[in-house]
Structure formats: C-alpha cells, structure tokens
C-alpha cells in the first residue's frame, strides 16, 4: 500500500506543526460554522497539505451564552429552565445533574417514583441522542437514508417525551425535588410500540450500515484513540469504552435507579471510528432494553415530587458538590457551589466535549484525509454547546 512521504510534512514543534501558509504548500479551509458536515455550530480550521490534514484547530464559542454567569443572577428555581438549554440534543442530563446537585446540597431526598421516572427520562434521552448520532454518523459518510430513518424514529421518541413531559426538545421535567408529572395513562404500551419500531429499524440499520463494505472501509482505522490517550486526554464514555476500558458512571457510581437495573459495560477493542460506532449501536439497543426494564419495574403509582422549600424563597446553605451522570458522550456533571443565598454562587457544567472536541479532535485530525474530518468529528460525538455553555 502507498504510504506518503512524511518528510514533506511540516516539522512539529511542541506538538504543533509549523506551517508557512505563504509557501503555497498548504491550503487552509474552514469546516464551519456554516458547514453541513459539522456537528452543531462550531468550526474546524483545517490546514491541508494536498488532501491530508496537517493541522486542525477547533473553534468554539459560536453558541456561548454565558450560562454560568446567567445562573449567578438567577434563583435556584429560575436556573432550572435554563440549564437544559446548555446541551440542546441532551437536555435531560443538565436537568438531572443540576437537580441532583441542588438536592444534595439542600438535603432533599426524592421519592421512589421520581427516581424511576428520572431513570426512564435519562435513558430515553440517551436513546434519542444515540438515534440522532447513528443518523449523523451515517449522514457524515454520505449514507443519508439511515439519517432519515433514525431522525424519524427519534421524533417518535420526542413524541413520547412530549406526552410525558410536555415538551419535545426541552423537557424541563426533572425539577429539584423530583419530576413534574407522572406518566400519562397508557404510556407504557405506546412506549413499547415505539421501542419495537426502533428495534426493527435498528435491525435494518445493522444490515445496511454496520455490514457495509464502504462504511467499514471508511471507518475502520479512522481516528484511533490509543490506550494511553485515554488518561492523557481525559477520554470518557463510548469513546473510552470502544478502547476496551470499562468506564460508565451508571455502573461505577450508580445514580437514581441504575443499581436496580440489569446491564453491563458495552465495550469494543479496536478503538477506531467503527468500534465507536458499534459501541454506540450496542448502547442504543441497551438503552431500549433499560427503558423497558424501567417501565416494567417501576411501581404503578406514588408521589413524584417531594415538597421543596417555597421556590420563591429557596436558600441553600453554603456548600459545594459535584453531581454526575453518564450521558451519551460520557461523564456529564454539574459542579455547584452555594453560599447561603437564594442564588447559586457558581455552577459549572462539565461536558465531555470540552476535551473531546478540542484537544482530542485536534490530535486525531492530524494526518487524516480531509474527507474524513466530518466522519471523525461525528464519531467522537461532540456537542459544541457544552464546551462553551
């Protein structure tokens, strides 16, 4: 096989290539922010030598809204509607982490039923997000059909969310003290129907995408995250599990009702884009299974919200904590500091994309073909809004 002559590539100094754009050897292109191949509103500043990427710099900030500042001037309950906006495709994890941190700091125990409902909501969120991801991954490599199917089925999940929470995208469901509403009557049957549909669709996806010569050709060997990079880059979630590392917050530090569910780590070994895709596919199926388990194990009735202090005057004693959950990309957490007033002193949302989208992506992009940038980008599953918040 042809291997390019590395000597023509720029020297690396401090891990960065030295590039003289005026030499005419290099082309600089921007992937994004206006670019259909990019995940969300972000940009990659890519320097090419021919078709190969010699440097990629991630630019974020297009979605910066200053959440952490805004939360400093909002009361605890007022923070609740805004936190979910931090990561658009997975709002539930923000809600959960915020509520969990707040409940911990104000010593609130939430009822059993609320914990089940939260588990269900979080797992359904993962399912929805994974569906979107599978579609995106296929789409980024030109298989639009899978994208269409997956997003459609994700929309059926959005219908479930709408029924359950009253909102399609921003559910604003897990508020401090529990959840906002019980499951509507007949929800379980409808949910199972949706799950059956998704499973049927995923079966087709398995045949079409995962047993696909071109897909394998494109993704196998792409963006390999080596074992030692896991610690060094702080890689979490499926990206780490695709490398055979057993890490999952749901199992390591079980929250809500995950300790009562039956599931295991989903791992792969190759650690390339294909392995990650397989991992996520398996996790999608696992999510469906977990959703079913939750619905089956959940008690029929029960209080879904415990009394909190009057939200208009809710003050929390000084303290700090870090609440985390396993979102589709790995460890998602809220670090909250309170100072006895009715507003949080500092809230920090820790999203896995902070490391994945920037230092990891910049590293993985080097020496890949520019055509693979979109696929690589999607394969490490980044959401820019959780980087800049």
């Amino acid at each position, binding site marked *: 096989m042809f291997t390019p002559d590395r000597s023509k590539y720029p020297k690396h100094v401090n891990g960065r290539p030295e590039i003289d754009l005026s030499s005419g050897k290099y082309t600089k292109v921007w992937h994004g922010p206006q670019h259909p191949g990019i995940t969300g509103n972000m940009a990659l500043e890519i320097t090419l030598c021919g078709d190969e990427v010699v440097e990629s710099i991630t630019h974020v*900030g297009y979605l910066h809204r200053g959440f952490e*500042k805004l939360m*400093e001037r909002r009361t605890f309950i007022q923070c609740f509607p805004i936190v979910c906006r931090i990561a658009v495709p997975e709002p539930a994890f923000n809600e959960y982490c915020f509520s969990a941190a707040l409940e911990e700091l104000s010593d609130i125990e939430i009822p059993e039923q609320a914990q089940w409902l939260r588990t269900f909501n979080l797992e359904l969120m993962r399912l929805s997000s994974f569906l979107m991801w599978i579609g995106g991954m296929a789409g980024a490599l030109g298989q639009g059909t899978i994208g269409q199917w997956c997003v459609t089925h994700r929309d059926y999940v959005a219908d479930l969310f709408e029924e359950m929470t009253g909102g399609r995208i921003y559910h604003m469901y897990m508020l401090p003290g529990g959840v906002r509403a019980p499951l509507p009557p007949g929800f379980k049957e409808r949910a199972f129907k949706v799950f059956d549909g998704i499973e049927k669709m995923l079966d087709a996806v398995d045949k079409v995408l995962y047993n696909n010569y071109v897909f394998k050709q494109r993704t196998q060997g792409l963006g390999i995250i080596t074992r030692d990079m896991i*610690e060094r880059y*702080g890689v979490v979630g499926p990206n780490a599990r695709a490398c055979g590392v057993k890490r999952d917050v749901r199992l*390591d530090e079980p929250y809500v009702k995950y300790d009562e569910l039956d599931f295991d780590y989903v791992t792969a070994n190759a650690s390339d884009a294909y392995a990650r895709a397989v991992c996520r596919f398996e996790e999608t199926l696992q999510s469906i299974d977990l959703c079913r388990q939750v619905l089956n194990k959940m008690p029929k009735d029960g209080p879904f919200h415990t009394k909190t202090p009057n939200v208009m005057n809710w003050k929390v004693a000084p303290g700090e904590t870090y609440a985390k959950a396993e979102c589709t990309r790995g460890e998602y*957490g809220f670090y909250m500091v309170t100072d006895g007033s009715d507003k949080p002193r500092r809230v920090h949302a*820790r999203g896995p994309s902070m490391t994945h989208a920037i*230092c990891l992506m910049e590293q993985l992009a080097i020496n890949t073909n520019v055509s693979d940038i979109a696929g690589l980008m999607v394969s490490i599953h980044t959401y820019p809004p959780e980087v800049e918040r």
Partner: protein
Amino acid sequence: MMLEKLKQTFTVTEVKEQKKNLTFFTVPKEQMEMMLITLRDHHDYKHLSFIVGIDMIEDGVFKLTYMLYNYETNHSFGIHCNIDREKAEMDSFHHLWEQVGTYQRELREMLGINFEGSPRLEENLSLDEGWDGPPPMRRDFDTKEYSNNTYFQREGRVNYDPREYMREQLYPTFPKTESDKLLNGGGKK
C-alpha cells in the same frame, strides 16, 4: 487514610467530605503541581474531570477547583487552591493532561487568570474575537447592564408592581411606608 498520608507531605487544609465518594480539600498554590502529580501517578487519580475557577470577591481570591477522579475506587478529590485576585497567576499544568490547556484558556478568558506557558492562552475560547469587556465571570461584571447597554431591546414594556399599583389605586393618601428607606431603596425587586 490516604489524606493522612498526603498530609504528611502537603499542607492540606479545609478537608470536607461532601459524600461517600467526593472529598474537598485545599492546598497552597505552590504545592498544587506536586499534589496533582502525586495523586495522578501514585494514587491512581488519573482522570481530571474539570478545572473551575470561582471568584471569591469578598475574600479577594480566586478559588480554583481541580476535580480528580480515581477509576479504581470511584472516588473524587476536589482540590481547591486560592490565588490572589489582584495578581491572578497560576502555574500551568498543561503538561499533565492535554485538556488542561483548554481549561486554562477558559479561565484566562472568563476570570482573567494568567497561566504562564500555557499553549494558545491568548486565544479566546468562547467569547467573540473582539470582546472588550472585563472577564465576564468576575463577580463585579454585571451581565444585565452590559446587555442593556450593548444590544437593542424591543421597546414598549411597562411593568407595574402590584403593591405600588394598589397603593395608588386604593389608598394614595396613607402615609407612605418608610421601609423603602430602611431597605436602602430595595423594593420588591
């Protein structure tokens, strides 16, 4: 137990066990690097979850929190370190973990902390390239005021405070409560 061991080498103060698997403590600025290296290399705290800075304006310090995680024991350490607010400088740890550089860029941008030697420190991470205000996460920066002065609002909003409105409507002549004065002009909002 491990903390006891650490205490022999480091000045560990303000230990607080927040929950079963999360402990916070403070070390002086100078010992931070050794602390991180010790925890990472000798105690398996290999995962850096995040670095966050808190503006403790009343104490005149920035409180940096480094959250380390041990995958073997599933325990986290939140390590605090106070640095002077006026002369906000901190050692750069970008050589320990790759993502540290990004966090340090963010801290530089949001709080104005300088990390000598950190790569690409001067590049804005989230803010617009032309941002000319103070570092926005500082407590003395008022985002609402900035927004009001900078961006266009849609006019035509009027708001009435129910208690003021009821006073005007129902008992305009009653001697006005002096509590406004007592509360330093604080009303409902």
